[in-house]
């Protein structure tokens, strides 16, 4: 049977991708950001999954605003890196896992989640920057990826609790897939940031660190955070953090924390990063 072995959370700032692609990771500005990812790059060498279910948001590269699905699952054999206005990132094609994606879609709709199926889409920095941060600069990605795109842009986004419930359903769906697969789930985006208007540049270190504490510890409060509270406290784009809740809920009730990192800033954004694994049954 398939096993959900770990969860990774990370911000997906586009400038981080540019710093990697342009060889600036050791510049004074970027060095402390990338130092926070050295641990995961070593860890994943021994813990390379067969498949990553990667929760991210499309930044008007493949769907928004022509279609605005609340949850969209990538079904394709392959996803090309998108050209976001200055040429596509020089990163490998992302290969999907249509069999597990099909199983997930069936199970999730049976569980009352009205999932949109994407049979063709390009993937932008929201998906490829986390892959670069964890797997480094490689000629091919070492794992298959099932993109799960979440609407975090157009109000109303799914609620924190809805994301939590989806994560739980994903956890159950993975566990019922008959093939022996090592599966990880990643939640990306955040942490606090605002990319618009006179309030742009908002960072809320207290909110971010309380959010990280609760992901590791008592999670009930996280499900009650309203959209308005995310927007007020974490900035208009900080609401991307709902995608971390899908990841966390999929891992089950208790987790062990393997790695935690927080840094301000990367461009306009607070960078947060966690590596978690489901706690052993006692």
């Amino acid at each position: 049977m398939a096993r959900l072995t770990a969860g990774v959370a990370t911000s997906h700032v586009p400038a981080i991708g540019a710093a990697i692609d342009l060889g600036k990771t050791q510049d004074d500005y970027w060095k402390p950001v990338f130092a926070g990812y050295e641990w995961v790059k070593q860890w994943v060498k021994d813990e390379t999954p067969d498949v990553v279910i990667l929760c991210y948001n499309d930044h008007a590269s493949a769907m928004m605003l022509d279609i605005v699905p609340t949850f969209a699952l990538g079904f394709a054999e392959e996803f090309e890196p998108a050209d976001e206005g200055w040429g596509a990132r020089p990163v490998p094609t992302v290969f999907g896992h249509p069999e597990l994606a099909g199983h997930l879609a069936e199970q999730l709709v049976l569980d009352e989640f009205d999932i949109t199926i994407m049979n063709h889409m390009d993937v932008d920095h929201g998906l490829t920057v986390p892959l670069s941060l964890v797997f480094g600069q490689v000629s091919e990605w070492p794992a298959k990826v099932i993109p799960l795109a979440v609407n975090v842009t157009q109000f109303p986004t799914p609620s924190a609790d809805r994301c939590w419930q989806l994560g739980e359903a994903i956890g159950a769906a993975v566990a019922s897939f008959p093939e022996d697969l090592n599966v990880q789930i990643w939640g990306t985006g955040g942490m606090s940031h605002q990319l618009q208007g006179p309030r742009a540049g908002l960072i809320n270190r207290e909110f971010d660190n309380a959010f990280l504490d609760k992901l590791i510890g008592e999670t009930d409060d996280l499900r009650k955070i309203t959209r308005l509270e995310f927007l007020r406290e974490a900035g208009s784009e900080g609401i991307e953090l709902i995608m971390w809740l899908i990841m966390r809920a999929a891992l089950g009730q208790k987790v062990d924390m393997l790695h935690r990192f927080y840094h301000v800033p990367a461009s306009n954004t607070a960078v947060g990063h966690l590596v978690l694994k489901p706690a052993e049954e006692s």
Partner: protein
Amino acid sequence: MTQDERPAPRQRLYPLEDLEDIPGTRIFTARRSRQAYHLHKFCMSLMDKDNRDAFRADEQAYLDRYRMSDDQKQAVLKRDFGKLIELGGNIYFLVKLSNTDGWSTEKAVSSMTDLTPEEYGAMMRSGGRKAEGNRSIRDKS
């Protein structure tokens, strides 16, 4: 349907008007999304190199291909990102325009504030804009 048979109003956790209570922030609602649809189509078109070249060659003529409002076209020509947000835009597609210009996202975002790019960069390096005083217009908190 008589008055008594009308469904009860749904309970909400807060009045949606509260979304307008965050200082210096415009929430990208479904209605604003529709207002910006053609602006978005223009921005999405810049994901293609030939289109970027055509836009650079004659910006006004290129913009006239899209059913955007004149205000939106003027704001594009002026690279007035703050105005584009007011006119329904969202940063996730507006960055296609700033990327086409070779701007960093930080530069595009900083242009919406009252800070120069240098002042904005310094603010971010010193921890960003504080949440205190920037949460609520009504409560001045």
